[in-house]
């Protein structure tokens, strides 16, 4: 489950930018929810996504997994309607309900035919406002969580990812496994879920994004219906600061054929003024698929791996910069050496003029691809909404990318990316 969550986060990061022409209507509900509406009648479809600041960062160590389990349980029965009937009511409307979850947020999305929107929206509202948190189902789902956690403890990728986050974040909530631990899941009871829901599903921390075949008046009505069911509570609960100063070098044995290597450190949070510069630079270093330096050195020139990548994953608080690779065990030390050399050269000299031009061409020329469907618009604007990006973020995006210089990328990497503080995790080392 942990792995899955990370993949979803990467997806959102990479689909980070969008069309300037997107007309986003924005307003706030009277109890503080932020509403984003993109009206589009091309297809008879309505997509809605709601996000709460109720991700695993809100977990306490002794009950880690509580945030995830709350998110998971919310779609398993509501308003006295049992789990099976609820699922079937959505199916009978042809509507799709999905939940999403990561370190920072807990989200729910609805896709419905516009002909069925009012019934589907009523059901969604019920799901959001009146979770049953049925004791029997909690018991069953806890067992399934535990099964999944114990299984993931045998999988090299999961082991590596968990150890890496632990090395970077220690006791900070970002260091806790999102889906909890066997011990912590066992401790969670119905009241914990109810309390977590009451304290963290708040109107002033809610963002609602509506895309598609629905009028402004209807969108206002639906946003009102959703937000009115949550209390406003300007709480003081602050996410603890990330305190990372001791890099670690962790090796874990595993009978796998490949070793899994993770390498990096906590670097950047959402809204950081260096982010776009680092993001563009990282495209050249290890984010740009086939054409990145890491892929060139590791895969194209030496055939050492199927996949090698780097990314910045900004959270509300300081998120990781991470490099990852899987390679045959006896090649992992060689791969690590080449990765280190590639990264340190990039930090030292920055990108070449040609690399920078190509990276900008990619970002600017491919701009329309980032928002070519209602689904991708929903995902992108939801990210913007949750992290409170300025509304003109999209309009100014290509312009800001265009202005970034090679010197600025070099300077940002030199100021922010300190390899002497990188931790390393290798699972399956010999």
């Amino acid at each position, binding site marked *: 489950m942990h792995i899955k969550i990370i*993949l979803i986060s*990467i*997806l959102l990061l*990479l689909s980070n930018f969008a069309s300037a022409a997107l007309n986003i209507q924005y307003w706030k509900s009277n109890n503080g929810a932020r509403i984003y509406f993109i009206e589009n009648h*091309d*297809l*008879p*479809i309505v997509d809605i996504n709601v996000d709460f600041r109720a991700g695993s960062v809100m977990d306490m160590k002794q009950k880690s997994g509580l945030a995830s389990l709350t998110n998971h349980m919310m779609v398993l029965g509501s308003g006295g309607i049992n*789990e*099976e009937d609820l*699922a*079937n009511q959505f*199916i*009978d409307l*042809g509507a*799709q309900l999905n939940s999403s979850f990561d370190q920072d947020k807990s989200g729910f999305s609805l*896709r419905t*035919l516009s002909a069925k929107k009012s019934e589907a929206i009523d059901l969604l509202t019920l799901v959001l406002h009146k979770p049953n948190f049925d004791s029997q189902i909690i018991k*069953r789902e806890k*067992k*399934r969580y535990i*099964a*999944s956690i114990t*299984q993931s403890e*045998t999988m090299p990728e999961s082991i590596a990812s968990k150890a890496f986050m632990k090395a970077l974040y220690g006791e900070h909530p970002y260091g806790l496994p999102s889906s909890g631990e066997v011990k912590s899941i066992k401790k969670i009871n119905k009241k914990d879920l109810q309390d977590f829901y009451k304290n963290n599903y708040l109107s002033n921390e809610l963002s609602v994004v509506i895309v598609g075949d629905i009028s402004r008046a209807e969108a206002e009505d639906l946003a009102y219906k959703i937000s009115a069911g949550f209390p406003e509570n300007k709480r003081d609960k602050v996410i603890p600061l990330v305190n990372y100063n001791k890099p670690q070098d962790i090796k874990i044995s*595993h*009978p*796998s*054929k*490949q070793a899994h290597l993770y390498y990096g450190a906590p670097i950047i949070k959402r809204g950081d003024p260096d982010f776009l510069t680092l993001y563009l630079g990282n495209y050249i270093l290890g984010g*740009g*698929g*086939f*054409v990145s330096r890491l892929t*060139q050195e590791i*895969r*194209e020139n030496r*055939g*050492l*791996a*199927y*996949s*090698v*990548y780097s990314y910045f994953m900004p959270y509300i608080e300081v998120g990781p910069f991470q490099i990852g690779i*899987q*390679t*045959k065990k006896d090649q992992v030390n060689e791969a690590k050496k080449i990765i280190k050399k590639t990264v340190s050269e990039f930090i030292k000299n920055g990108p070449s003029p040609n690399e920078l031009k*190509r990276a900008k*061409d*990619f*970002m*600017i*020329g*491919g*701009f*329309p*691809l980032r928002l*070519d*469907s209602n*689904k991708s618009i929903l995902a992108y604007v939801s990210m913007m909404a949750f992290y409170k990006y300025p509304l003109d973020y999209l309009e100014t995006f290509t312009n800001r990318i265009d202005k970034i210089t090679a010197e600025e990328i070099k300077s940002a990497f030199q100021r922010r990316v300190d390899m002497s503080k990188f931790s390393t995790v290798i699972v399956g080392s010999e």
Partner: protein
Amino acid sequence: MVNYLLLYKLFLIKGLHVNFLKLIFIFCLTPFFAQAEQNIQEITLKNGMRVLVKEDHRSPVVVSMVWYRAGSLDEVNGKTGVAHVLEHMMFKGTKTTKPGEYSEIVAAAGGRENAFTGADYTAYFQRLEKSKLPISMKMESDRMQNLVITEEEFKKEISVVMEERRWRTDDKPKAQVNELFNSLIFRAHPYGRPIVGWMNDLQNMTYEDAIEWYKMWYSPSNAIMVIAGDVDTKKVFAEARKYFGKIPAYEIAKRKPQFEPIQNGSRRAVLKAPSKLPYIQMGYPTPTLGKDGISNQKEAFALEVLVGILSGTSASRLNQNLVKKTSKAVNVSAGYSMLSRGGQSTFEMYGTPSEKVSVVELEKYLKLELKNIADNGVTDIELKRVITSVIAGKVYQKDSVMGAAMQIGQLETMGYSYNIVDDYIDNIKKVTTKDIQDVIKKYFHDDALTVVTLDPQPLDKNKTPKGRPHAH
């Protein structure tokens, strides 16, 4: 959502983006439904290459795909995996371009590109801002005829593919179970061989094997181009003629029909791998829809609806009865693909038992679900739910240009017409509870059963497995 016409046969993807892997998988899971008004235009070039265009003007974007009717289905023993290896080599330069040069050109145009290999086909695609379509045409036409495969580039890339196999299969117990399952249920048919190839074959593959494959299958007469998005069909046809029209075609070797001999008696195997939980994959050979879209229709659609009723949604029978109500399993699902180029298909069920339930017991429970339907049928509500999901899915798929291109390409390379989807909803609606009972009784009997179970081993070899009854 219900996964009709689920094309779940494994794809291999050149790409290294982890998220892209998911993306492809999402396409596979996209409901595959009727589009009464598909508005697809098509021409055949003089060399036999077909070009299909579907306009969609919602967004200034185009998806361009070239599909070859060549996949692991066409491989022979000793050279398994070569279709996929060639797919990787297609990025390694032509007579006039360096290795990786086209990838740089596509990226600098803001484009996304990748390729994938299946049992039935190999496909290459780009997503681009609409004015950039000629880049794709130039690149695909060049590598269709002028590919250069050097020994040096091959040696590096074959190591990449071996790493891919280790990552995709060797270190993933469920993937290993699936590999064993396929080789057991298909003893004669090439679907029994892994798309990625056996490790031994990869180790012994040479660059000449890749060249041989390229020369055998990459004729324009064996290729289909699919373009979807914000384009003008006439202009696309003109461009296609310009770039591909003059590529000489050659004769494609005649393919022999291959059919799996009838199975008489159940087949069972156990796979040991590091894991905590056991796992079961079981299945039966089943018919596919005939290439005319008509033969086997009744049975194929009955199986299609059955898989939806068993496993299409969170409230479907397997999940509802075995995970939710009785907690006998932590995960269960079923799969069936009614379409295949190779004319063979299987109906499969997968499950992870709960603690204190053995794989033997779970097998029994899964079979009981089938027996229950064979004896008592399914309800009208269940049938109606499948239809509702398919109809809604038809509308939702319009949001994905890539999904439309995928659907056309898959159908056409497998030998069907894209038109068969026009009748899809009607055919789903025709399925009765008796049709479903009939296919269960006809195909799902123990003598046709294949079962592979995962016997979990501790990570530390010195420790013995404990705590859970094992069934062998």
